[in-house]
């Protein structure tokens, strides 16, 4: 980061390549699977780094800080979209969740059902789920990123898994919660 502050182009390029796919995935899954929004948010995130690199606190791990900024951007987007939603019919926006899969499905279908369930649970469960299982952060790190107590993170993860097991019947026999 110090190299970026001093204007090292190669350092910025390396940082971008190291995190672009992870951050893009996070935005994509957090923002209703929209590649357009994910691209916009990815650009905005790195623009923040360019314009205010001094906002990074070196006492924290860089990736923890970066995901924390990304998560706050998503929260702001949810707030904005909540305002917009008032003008639309709420039924049209609700995810359809009338399935209960009793037989094994393909990984792609399973993922689709997982994210439909997580959408129903809300962004706070989805963010904890993604950070823990996709990014591999520890409970402590997830708590730090989401600015929550560790107990809350554990409870959100447990609740999300429980809900997924309920919706995907066949998983009940295959996994331990």
């Amino acid at each position, binding site marked *: 980061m110090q190299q970026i502050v001093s*204007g090292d*182009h190669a350092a*910025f*390029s390396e940082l*971008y390549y190291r995190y*672009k*796919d992870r951050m*893009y*995935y996070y935005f*994509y*899954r957090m923002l209703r*699977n929209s*590649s357009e929004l*994910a*691209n916009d948010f*990815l*650009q905005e995130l*790195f*623009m923040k780094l*360019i*314009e205010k690199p001094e906002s990074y606190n070196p006492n924290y791990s860089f990736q923890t800080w970066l995901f924390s900024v990304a998560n706050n951007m998503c929260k702001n987007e949810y707030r904005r979209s909540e305002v917009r939603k008032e003008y639309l019919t709420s039924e049209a926006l609700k995810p359809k969740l009338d399935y209960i899969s009793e037989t094994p499905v393909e*990984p792609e279908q*399973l*993922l689709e059902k*997982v994210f439909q369930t997580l959408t129903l649970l809300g962004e706070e469960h989805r963010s904890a*789920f*993604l950070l*823990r*299982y*996709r990014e*591999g952060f520890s409970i402590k790190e997830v708590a730090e990123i989401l600015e929550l107590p560790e107990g809350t993170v554990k409870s959100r993860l447990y609740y999300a*898994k429980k809900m*997924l*097991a309920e919706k995907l019947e066949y*998983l009940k*026999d*295959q*996994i*331990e*919660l």
Partner: protein
Amino acid sequence: MTKKNSDQLFTDLLRNDRIGEPSKAIEDRLMYSFLLKNSSQKLKQNSFASFFGWLFSVQGLGLKTGLVSVILFVSVMNNQINIESGSISCTDTIFTKRVLLADSTSFVQSIDSLRTDSLN
């Protein structure tokens, strides 16, 4: 059937999720913005505009007054020392008066008068 750990199942599931890559245009825009920002920073570094702006503003008046006082004090003291160092104050007489000349703290040379006709 042995049960699989749910953490492992979801980790495997999500890590194998492929959604594509971000647009290349974003990378180009970001690299351009980074270069642009740093080039403008370098221009700023070579400019005196911010210094003059500070100098003629009301900011840091105490500091500026102090600096001016120090500069005045040094220049006044410097002039006084030059006068006392025995320069010829009057050339239309055959005598020039000199005051005590202090070369150092331990050496004080007293010259009451000096005949200038010896110069001729």
